[in-house]
């Protein structure tokens, strides 16, 4: 699985993993004099579950923010679907088909669950203002078609019963699920998950892991995730990038990473000279 070729292959559990869909080349990100990310390169292949792990402050979230366009790196290139990506705003990145969730939930509290998930279909709905004002033609058709798709996602994530509840009234675990639903509704080429299991109990973590695996399996979604729970990461992911102090210290299958001396040092701690 660690071969660097761009050919697709089939994993042991029967999923097809395709070619490279996103590649980060020598990314360096500075905030003034502080280097958050130093010269990191890695790739994400179609259909895989890619984890980014590392101790606190390692630069994982910064990396995700570079991918989703919140930060523009000073050096390095982002390649997406075989083309170099020019610096762009987050909404342009989203329109290219990269969806994400946040560590501390970013939902629209005043809207119902259904409306929140419907916002994920933004890219697929492009009736103009006049059509929408009259609720005729394209606007009406799109609204119904996309509602049908969204209902599939809602079924899939088992949130039917709260469809019309305002998000502000939901408990934490369900909010996380709604946020996942919104990201998934966009039919993203890459789905970025920033600590999808933070603050959850064991049962909720199990549910969430199941959803992530099923998502990957059923919709073939490419997933890049940041997570602190080592057990979860090692179970879920196909390949893992390990970061520490803004540098990449390991990259490979969970087994390779587990036995990497640098990774062990970073997690268990050795004297830094």
């Amino acid at each position: 699985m660690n071969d660097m070729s761009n050919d697709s292959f089939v994993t042991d559990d029967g999923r097809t993993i395709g070619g490279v869909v996103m590649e980060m080349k020598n990314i360096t990100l500075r905030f003034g004099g502080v280097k958050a990310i130093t010269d990191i390169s890695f790739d994400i292949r179609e259909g895989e579950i890619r984890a980014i792990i590392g101790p606190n402050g390692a630069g994982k979230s910064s990396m995700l923010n570079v991918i989703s366009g919140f930060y523009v790196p000073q050096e390095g290139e982002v390649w997406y679907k075989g083309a170099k990506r020019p610096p762009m705003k987050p909404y342009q990145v989203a329109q290219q088909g990269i969806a994400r969730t946040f560590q501390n939930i970013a939902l629209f509290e005043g809207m119902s669950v259904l409306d929140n998930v419907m916002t994920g279909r933004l890219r697929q709905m492009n009736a103009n203002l006049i059509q929408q004002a009259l609720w005729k033609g394209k606007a009406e058709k799109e609204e119904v078609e996309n509602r049908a798709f969204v209902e599939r996602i809602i079924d899939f994530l088992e949130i039917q019963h709260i469809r019309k509840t305002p998000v502000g009234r939901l408990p934490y675990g369900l909010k996380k699920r709604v946020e996942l639903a919104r990201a998934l509704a966009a039919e993203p080429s890459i789905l970025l998950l920033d600590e999808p299991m933070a603050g959850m109990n064991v049962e909720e973590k199990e549910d969430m892991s199941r959803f992530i695996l099923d998502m990957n399996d059923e919709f073939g979604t490419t997933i890049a995730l940041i997570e602190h729970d080592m057990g979860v990461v090692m179970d879920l992911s196909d390949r893992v990038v390990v970061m520490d102090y803004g540098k990449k210290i390991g990259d490979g299958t969970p087994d390779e990473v587990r036995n990497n001396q640098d990774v062990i040092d970073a997690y268990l701690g050795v004297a830094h000279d």
Partner: protein
Amino acid sequence: MFYREAGDFKTNYADDNQTFPIRFDRYRYYAVMLFAFGAVPFLINDYWVNAIFLPFLIYAIAAIGLNILVGYCGQVSLGTGGFMAVGAYACYKLMTAFPEISIFIHVLLAGGVTALVGVLFGLPSLRIKGFYLAVATLAAQFFLVWLFNRVPWFYNYSASGQISAPERTVFGIAVTGPNTTAWAPYLFCLVILTLLALVARNLTRGMQGRKWMAIRDMDIAAEIIGVNPLKAKLSAFAVSSFFIGVAGALFFSVYLGAVEVGEAFGINQSFLVLFMIIIGGLGSIFGSFAGAAFLVLMPVLLKNVLVGGLGWPTDIAAHLEFLIVGALIIVFLIAEPHGLAQLWRVAKEKLRLWPFPH
């Protein structure tokens, strides 16, 4: 016929998406429309039209417009009076320059002009939020009133500096000017309000409304799902200003007839419309109606009770009116910070189960 949704099954998404999903609501809406179009025009006289119906209809349009901007998109604006003035003056210039074209077209065009001006003054919203944006729109309010006062071209170089509406007709019946009958201006405003309310409802229940609400609730998250903040905010300013411009045009041409800009479209007007949507309920079309009705009806009602009913002197009644309306606003907001629309929603929830406890 009770207020029930049991047995009212939806078998497709279009049904579930409609404006009044509950059958009883739908029938009530038809009944109200029938009454407003079929009965009211035959019952009203000049007093009713000028004291209650015209201001209510026109303020409802303005309130819906402001609610789109403030309640749905989360951008605070104190420029309503100024934008209404733009609508009024645009309408005046159009009416006098092209007398042969229907007033209906003029009113809509006046809305269009206001939309452009609104977008212009909405540009700061891309950089600033909240109170700071409110101050920026306040600048629009003062600038626009100053402009219409100082540039004689806008009031056609009239000696008084006022603008007054010439007589214009729809289907041969006068709706502006001194020779109107009570029902004609009423129906004219009602038709426009009905159309615009439908447009507002369609926009806010569809994708455009979701984009606006996304910006309101969390702009970063809105960006991450692909909402272009520039387009979303400016479209809210445009649509909102269109409504407010139409309201301003009607306020001048149909309701007042003659206008002195500082008096009719001053900062008071901005606050009045803002209070309407706060009392009525932010982010609710029904709330816009309720707020407009409350602030238009209350003073009239109090006056009739105090002067007509109790025989108090007019000046004391006028002062008391301020006190009572102010107190009522406070009471309402403490009882329900989300406005009359929320009270209505809670009442409906209760009605749905009544008379059973669960």
